């Protein structure tokens, strides 16, 4: 037992682990994969230059570099795919939860009566993929703010409206 002299049985409290989290949209997975691929193209371009136009490195060393880069790319890709299944959010009666992480698993909960405000963000690439990001701000500083990426714009707007209405009802 965690609490002595307590009228509430802690085992009766609502538990997040038993409820199912809603997954993010598949388009968001595509977006992260593309972002990661574009990112890795820069060192790859450097290696191509070294391989074909420069003789400062020996061939065997270059092969190691290529293997290293490729495995780095693939491992990260694997983590992205495995981690994407973990990502999800859950709207409950009194709070919103977001979970993520394959190596370090995290679940953040923000109670509705602690939300300061929320906003929707959409970058250039996200607009192409038709997904939005919902950001929820609390007074607890940037580390505790919740960002749910990979939402359909309509859904994000509906969630934001719901949150605004709920938040104002607490004041």
């Amino acid at each position, binding site marked *: *037992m*965690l*609490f*002595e*002299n*307590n009228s*509430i049985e*802690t085992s009766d*409290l*609502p*538990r*997040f*682990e038993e409820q199912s989290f809603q997954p993010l949209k598949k388009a968001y997975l595509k977006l992260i994969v593309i972002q990661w691929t574009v990112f890795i193209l820069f060192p790859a371009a450097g290696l191509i230059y070294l391989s074909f136009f420069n003789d400062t490195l020996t061939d065997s060393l270059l092969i190691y570099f290529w293997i290293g880069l490729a495995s780095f790319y693939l491992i990260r890709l694997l983590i992205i795919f495995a981690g994407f299944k973990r990502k999800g959010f859950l709207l409950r009666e*009194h*709070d919103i939860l977001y979970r993520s*992480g394959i*190596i*370090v*698993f*995290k*679940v*953040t*909960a*923000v*109670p*509705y*009566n*602690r939300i*300061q*405000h929320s906003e929707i963000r959409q970058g250039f690439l996200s607009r192409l993929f038709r997904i939005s990001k919902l950001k929820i*701000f*609390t*007074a*607890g*500083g*940037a*580390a*505790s703010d*919740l960002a749910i990426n990979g939402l359909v714009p309509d859904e994000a707007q509906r969630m934001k409206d719901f949150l605004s209405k709920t938040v104002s009802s*607490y004041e």
Partner: protein
Amino acid sequence: MNKFDFTVPGRQSAIGILLFFALSARKFFKALWPILLVYLFKNNSIPEDKRFWIIVAGVFLLFLVMLNATLSFFNFWFYIENNEFVVRKGYLKKVKLSIPLDRIQTINIKQNLLQQLLKVVTVEVDTAGSAQRELKLVALTNEQAIALQLVLGKEKQQLNKLKSEDEEENSQDSEKSAPIIRLTPTDLIKVGISENHLRSSLIVMAVVGGFINQIQDYFTDQIEVTSEEVGNFIIAQSVAIIISLSIAVLLIGFLFSIINTFLKYYDFTFARQDGEFTIKSGLLTKKGVTIPYSKIQVVSWVTNPIRNWMDFSTVTLTEASSKENDQKKAINIPGCNSRNRAVISREIFNIKDEPVWDKHFTHKSYAWKLWLLRGWLIAMPPAIIWYDNIIVLSVAAFWIVLNLPLSFLTLKKRYFRVNKDYIENSRGTIEQKWSRMYGFKVQSVKLKQSIFQRRKGLATIKLYTAGGKILTMPFIAESLARELYNYLLFNVESGNRKWM
């Protein structure tokens, strides 16, 4: 009773124009000091005929400074209108700032050396929340300031009373201001001596380093010559120099600690009054701060072995702040003995005696993780790079061995206590720091679990507070972590007590 009417626009104290003049001069000086410096050093090389024009430019500049000060002063108005505190200022760019009275969080009065001479004070009106704003009136007479503080406080209270009838926390009988702590010079010496001198030394070194850097930008050549000489000298007598240098730095740090303590905490009084704490302190810059209990998010206190032996600790009250890690929002109360601490705790948390707690310790794999992070991860890279240097290797080995008992010391001090209403955690290695808060003041909760933790059935809980402080409970049993997570959320969501 109040001889000041704040509903009509008013100006600041007339003597304040001198202060505006000083501020204005400082602003100009800040912008122009590199140029001034160059002229000062190259004075000989300036031909006679140009000196006249330099003097003319100087006089013109002085005139500008005075004009700017006068115009700023006469265009600065403050008043209360429609339940808002309003400040209008500026002559080229006119600005009107207003704060709704019920949003005012604290009203602080400060006084620096010049203000002490002119007998005026600064009043800072502060808000918190998503729209961070601060109004500053730099030249009010003391009576004006106190009257303003009173009026703003009163109007605010009335508004709040209209809004909500319940004041469960502030129901203390209206006692008159009773000082809880008053520090004597002997107390201050005690506080100064038991400071962390290593930290002060580092601050001194950083400041000196920064200063040298700044000078370097202007006098690169000279510095290079001297530093070369100094460099040669150091190589010649390295060991003796290094030892005496470190002693000197420590001594300076020690002196700095004591002087700093006196400057900051001279004539320190900490009092309570009607659900508020008031703090006054300072030698050159006098500072007065008022915080209502309800605004306090976290109460922490730190001791080290020496302070523990003398029975005093530094208590820190963290206020709600929208700026992250804003140190100014944390109020330090040095030289608190255990009795004072109990009084503060009783006032804020409304508890008579130490509550009944459930104490939970941290799993020992946390110590192994610390040993890996603080010991091996720091020592290994230099050991690998200079693998043939016996000195580096022995220092690295010593570092790793030293960190093993330290990690377990940290583990021993890492625990948390919780009951129905409060949560408190403890941490530290040589020092020990406790942070206590109301469970319902938590802003958001995070549960973290790495794959290593999952194998051992452990997890880490992080609690985010509005003061920017984060309470971490690392490496506790996963079932306990989930229970804590669910309970704190329940605690926050089931009540409608105001966290601010």
